């Protein structure tokens, strides 16, 4: 693999800006790697080789003439196919949006363009981000680059696989119930979901609006922090976006004393679930390593963890049923030629273009919001959500960060199911609007990576990056290792 692709992004960008490396060569290296790995991994739904090379050339020319260098000048990035890039297709991996062309840029895309990033392609995902394996994509299955018979996780499986296999140094994804962090854990990379309201959702195809956040994939924590610095910040177009001042998330990230004074909480509930034995073992090792760094590890008690799968399902599906309603075949998207009345056209357009998982969630969400079920289901779930949030707030009185394995199981083979509690420690962050980051921890005996997850309190994102970076340094995980595909 070309050494260019193994560089940290900050270094890469510095070299591009100082004309040591041409952006064009970086893009060429990317596509060389893509040509080799992509036939097996199938991480991308669409690649923009010609356009990317042209952009790289423009960057190189611009820099020659002494122009200012953006934070990500000339650096390639992969974009999950549910984020709007003006004049580009955006399918959300659904048949429904097969021919849809985005009329506008998402806020994060505008920020990336301003920073000089180059969009090499659109990454595969579960249809409308519904799923945890990228298998519900209407177009293709993406493989885990460490074992191509296994799932990469999801819903942002394409972004995770692309970064893990070295096709791009980093990528954007969206995380509604672990959709960035679970595939990052499965693929052995860093995956970060911000505090709810840290990054604008404007231009990200909505799944469950009260959980959705755009976040970042990278080979290492520093790159994830750098990318976050570029895309985070206030945006009047997203009312839930908090008006926080701009922060450089890479600032002081290498501070050697970060862990020294910290209290790290490990949930008691972790031991209530069947966990892969190697994951347990390496997690315990990780806990010990953290202790050695001077952190105090405490047990925390969040009994409501056990409700996470149920309450997530109820609230998420409720919001899905409303958000997906706009896909009706009237203004854009797939319209069935077989409709004989308005309602028939609605029904057939949706029946013929939406996948099973999407339909299942629409039906379930419609059910829980029905007048007869609202109080029993939706309203009850919201109450339990408040209970969970309060218990987590209480837990943060005893600790600074909550620490767990990213997932309780290793990635399964295509077609196999993961247990629903597999990623409850990730979903809890969505339910409570908290930031979470997964960092690679170790390779298991089968050569597959496993990750650990830190969850912070709301808007502790800068500190979360520092904690993650501190762990990265002591994990013993070789980030320079790439899967052989």
């Amino acid at each position, binding site marked *: 693999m070309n050494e260019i692709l193994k560089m940290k992004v900050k270094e890469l960008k510095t070299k591009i800006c100082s004309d040591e490396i041409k952006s064009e060569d970086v893009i060429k290296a990317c596509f060389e790697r893509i040509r080799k790995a992509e036939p097996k991994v199938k991480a991308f739904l669409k690649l923009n080789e010609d356009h990317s090379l042209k952009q790289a050339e423009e960057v190189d020319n611009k820099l020659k003439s002494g122009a200012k260098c953006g934070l990500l000048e000339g650096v390639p990035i992969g974009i999950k196919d549910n984020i709007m890039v003006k004049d580009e297709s955006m399918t959300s991996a659904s048949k429904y949006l097969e021919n849809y062309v985005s009329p506008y840029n998402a806020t994060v895309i505008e920020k990336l363009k301003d920073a000089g990033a180059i969009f090499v392609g659109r990454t595969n995902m579960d249809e409308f981000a519904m799923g945890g394996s990228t298998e519900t994509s209407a177009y293709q299955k993406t493989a885990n680059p460490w074992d191509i018979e296994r799932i990469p996780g999801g819903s942002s499986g394409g972004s995770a696989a692309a970064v893990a296999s070295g096709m791009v140094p980093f990528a954007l994804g969206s995380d509604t119930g672990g959709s960035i962090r679970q595939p990052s854990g499965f693929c052995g990379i860093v995956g970060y979901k911000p505090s709810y309201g840290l990054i604008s*959702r404007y*231009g*990200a195809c909505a799944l469950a609006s009260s959980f959705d956040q755009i976040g970042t994939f990278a080979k290492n924590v520093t790159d994830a922090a750098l990318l976050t610095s570029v895309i985070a910040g206030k945006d009047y177009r997203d*009312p*839930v976006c908090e008006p926080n001042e701009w922060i450089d998330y890479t600032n002081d990230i290498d501070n050697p004393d970060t862990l020294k004074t910290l209290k790290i909480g490990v949930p008691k509930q972790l031991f209530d679930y069947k966990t892969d034995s190697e994951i347990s073992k390496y997690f315990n090792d990780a806990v010990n390593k953290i202790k050695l760094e001077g952190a105090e590890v405490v047990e925390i008690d969040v009994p409501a963890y056990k409700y996470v799968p149920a309450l997530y399902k109820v609230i998420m599906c409720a919001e899905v049923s*409303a958000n997906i*309603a706009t896909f009706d075949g009237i203004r854009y998207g797939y319209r069935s030629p077989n409709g004989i009345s308005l309602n028939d056209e609605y029904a057939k357009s949706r029946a013929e273009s939406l996948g099973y998982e999407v339909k299942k969630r629409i039906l379930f969400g419609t059910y829980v919001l*029905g007048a007869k079920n*609202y109080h029993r289901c939706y309203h009850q779930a919201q109450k339990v959500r408040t209970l969970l949030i309060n218990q987590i707030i209480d837990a943060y009185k005893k600790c600074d960060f909550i620490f767990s394995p990213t997932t309780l199981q290793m990635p399964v083979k295509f077609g196999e199911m993961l247990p629903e509690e597999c990623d409850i420690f990730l979903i809890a962050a969505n339910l409570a609007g908290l930031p979470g980051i997964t960092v690679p921890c170790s390779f298991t005996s089968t050569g597959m990576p496993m990750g650990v997850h830190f969850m912070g309190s709301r808007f502790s994102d800068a500190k979360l990056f520092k904690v993650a970076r501190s762990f990265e340094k002591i994990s013993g995980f070789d980030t320079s290792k790439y899967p052989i595909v």
Partner: protein
Amino acid sequence: MSKYETVVGLEVHMQINTKSKVFCECSTQFGAEPNANTCVVCTSQPGAIPILNKKAVEAIVKTGLALDFTINKQCTFARKQYFYPDVPKNYQITQSEPPLCSKGKLTINVDGKEKVINITRIHLEEDAGKLVHEIGSRKLDYSLLDLNRASVGLMELVTEPELSSPQEALSFLTELKNIVEYLDTSECNMEEGKMRCDVNISIRPVDQKELGTRVEIKNMNSISGVRDAIAYEVERQTEVLESGGKLIQETRLWEAEEGITKSMRTKEGALDYRYFPEPDLVPFDLSDSFIEELRKQLPELPKIKKQRFINDYGLSEYDADYLTSTRMIADYYEETLNASQDKKAAAKPVANWISTELNAKLNASKIDISESPVSSRNLAKLVSLILNGGISGKIAKTVFEEMYEKSLDPESIVKEKGLAQISDESEIMKICDEAIAENPKAVAEFKAGKERAIGAIVGLVMKKSKGQANPQLVNKILLEKLKA
């Protein structure tokens, strides 16, 4: 006296008068090219997110304050879900509980009797777009969708079922429209669909406590139509009950041309809108200072203005009523007074000119006073001319005609047409002499003691002077001459 009493409740939708829509930055301008006022938000493209227009919240709070509502400080939104092509998201963003305003009231006046009507709530929501099924008279075998109106802010006001006659409904809507126009929170233009009304009507035997079976008439777009539809429904429902039939709960449509209501759908398959809190718009609290600031901005409302007109300008109850019947008329009246040389002297004549001559003209040409070809400034000049003897009252009417037809100022008309009043005694004497000479019969009669005979001579003088001779002077000079 009827055996039945009528129970009516109204749901009134008024388009909020803001420059941009309630959840995006598009213009609300009426009559634009189809879909010209649309964006990624109001056409519901993937990834689009609504943003709340603060001005729309202000308009509702102002309306609530003017109608004695309790303002709920908590501002929350909900999604009301139903599939229809004119609602691009297939849900409408609206307010469920709490609405912005709860428990208001409005006093109406029917046949000289005042009655307080309680209003349940006012809430904020977005309008739907428009489906077009025909172009001119040509029916289409497809439908066109115009989303210009989609996501324009609406305030929905719901009354308690306390109206008990067509006249009361008429009075309520007229008064409401007037107040809202005063506030300028909605243009209430019913032809442009900026004010629409759903009417709930039932009848019940006098002395019965429970409400009768309710019929809803949807989408009424004229106030007189509401009155007529209620009258028709009361008659229809009475007939059904009298003939031993049973009423069904249903939605009916008012066919204005035929003057009848027709069944649209029965309530059996009532829709489940699956309301739930809107996750894209964060709930927030209105501050006390925000509400107080709006209270300070409230304009003088019609009732208070009317009283002031009576007190300050010495107007009759009747004139003050007319002049405050819309804000536009009241503004025009006061603008005219402000442009007058002698405000006090002008107060009554200006009121008369507006309520008679100008009103008749505007009605005939079917335009609002705001578009009057006679500006308030020119009307002030006209009245001043009359008051200072520049022209006679009779000539003034001719001048006014010209002013209305040609939008000219009265002075130039008087000058151009030579209509100024003749107050030069020597000139009038000359004409009087002629008139006396030409009418010996009347002169003789006068001298014989028949004083009324002078009228004929005055008439002749006025005729000879084309009405321009100062009538007081003519009288005085003729008397002097005839008695000499």
